[in-house]
């Protein structure tokens, strides 16, 4: 697939000039996300996140396996991200781009490395049987800022997922189906949320123009970017600014504080959406315990 066509010079100067005067092509101010829409599916652990035109699906699935020999008492949790030509013609199956690697490393550091999910709670019988959780992230449409959308999707899916109840009697383990016992939520210690800043060089006053949640066009024009992962109680889980234009330390700190504030807003929004889905799920279909799948009307 040919490389993404270069942005034309006129477009480039127009957008940069607007940014320098604190204006954005889509009318947002520099420090705000596009509107985030979370829609849930039939089964637990599935969420479709829309951030403006960017759209990402995340699905959590669980299976019982033997634990890793060096981690007898811990369950396993892997995140797989794969960008296909559906998201944008630039991506090809089988040939991971630089964005692929950066994104999977970022999710790894933000969610797995910062122990958002307590893997010890996934242990059924130490050394023999543990839950192995897998988060599949599918990129449906790429209009910039895949990192933040993917992170929000995985965190929401984890919070939405329900693990079937397991009873252990002696050697044999019985996994109760969804209808026998109400499944139990995962134990999430904290909700790390990524906020990506894009730097567009200095305006007349000499200070750096930085914006949150850049669209694909803005991403093509930015001179540098930084991703800060924060949770709502002000702990910074990871920062990665890998190159790009040099930015004053003071500006980076300001961005980190701004990110902490923003994360509180996003955090509330996710909690709100989860509660709404819970209400809809219980009200809608009292035949939850009846035969067959839940049939909630759309």
């Amino acid at each position, binding site marked *: 697939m040919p490389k993404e066509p270069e942005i034309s010079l006129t477009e480039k100067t127009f957008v940069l000039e607007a940014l320098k005067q604190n204006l954005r092509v889509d009318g947002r101010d520099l420090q705000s996300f596009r509107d985030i829409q979370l829609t849930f599916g039939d089964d637990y652990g599935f969420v479709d996140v829309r951030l403006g035109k960017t759209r990402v699906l995340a699905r959590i699935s669980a299976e019982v396996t033997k634990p890793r020999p060096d981690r007898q008492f811990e369950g396993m949790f892997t995140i797989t991200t794969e960008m296909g030509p559906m998201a944008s013609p630039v991506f090809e199956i089988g040939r991971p781009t630089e964005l692929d690697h950066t994104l999977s490393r970022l999710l790894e550091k933000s969610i797995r490395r910062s122990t958002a999910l307590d893997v010890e709670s996934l242990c059924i019988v130490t050394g023999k049987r543990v839950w192995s959780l897998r988060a599949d992230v599918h990129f449906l449409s790429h209009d910039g800022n895949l990192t933040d959308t993917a992170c929000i999707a995985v965190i929401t899916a984890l919070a939405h997922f329900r693990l079937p109840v397991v009873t252990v009697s002696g050697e044999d383990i019985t996994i109760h189906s969804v209808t026998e016992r109400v499944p139990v939520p995962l134990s999430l210690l904290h909700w790390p949320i990524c906020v990506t800043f894009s730097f567009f060089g200095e305006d007349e006053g000499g200070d750096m123009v930085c914006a949150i949640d850049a669209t694909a066009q803005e991403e093509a024009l930015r001179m540098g970017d930084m991703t800060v992962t924060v949770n709502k109680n002000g702990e910074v889980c990871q920062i990665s600014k890998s190159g790009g234009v040099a930015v004053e*330390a003071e500006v980076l700190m300001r961005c980190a504080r701004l990110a902490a504030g923003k994360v509180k807003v996003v955090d509330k929004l996710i909690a709100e959406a989860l509660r709404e889905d819970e209400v809809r799920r219980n009200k809608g279909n009292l035949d939850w315990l009846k035969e067959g799948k839940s049939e909630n009307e759309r």
Partner: protein
Amino acid sequence: MEGLRNDGRRWNELRRIHCQLSTSSTNADGSSYIEQGFTKVLCNVTGPAEPSNRQRVKQDSATVSCEVYFAAFSGTDRIKRGRNDKKVQELQTAIQKTFSSIILTHLFARSEITISIHILSQDGGTLAACINAATLALIDAGIPMTDYVCACTAGQSTSIFDNEGASPDPWLDVNYLEESDIPSLTVATVGDSEKIVALSMENKVRIEALEAMIAVGISGCARVRGIMDKEVRRYGKEKLEAEGE
């Protein structure tokens, strides 16, 4: 432990840095070798040269590409890190993007500058050592850059605020033991200014402690620049004296 770290350094003491330019001058335009404590990195730079594959050619500027090779014996666990190992890819992207904004790439349109880094031994601060080695190799190759890029690591000894909120005391230039034990970050600045080119932190830290760590990191970078600058001048003087006769 009255203020001394496990290898006997005070909180603001850099590990011993030994750096050297044009170590392998025949097969590379510029080369360098750096030792920061026991982290040893060798770097070769070739370019600006004919780009190897066609689609990476940019019309108005040079493309900076980077390859990082971990020696199997470099770490404590003997693992062979292949080409698409995530850690290798991340390091390569970080170095490539860092130097793309520092090198005056507009002077060499449609050509490629390749930085190849060989990590001989890892004892913490691997990314920092790679960036410093790359800076020296680029200078040795005579590739114009706006300024040195110096990198340094900083850690934070009391990871959680102790109850009476004592301010966290950050450590400078953490080694492997400290890096795996306390939260630490790598910061790379342009010369000895306060402008940060690269910043990477992988563990959890309170936002208040972050500022102290970055400040210490930046001061560390300024001192690293001093040491590297001294070596470049010594190497230059030696070269000029030979020619001067």
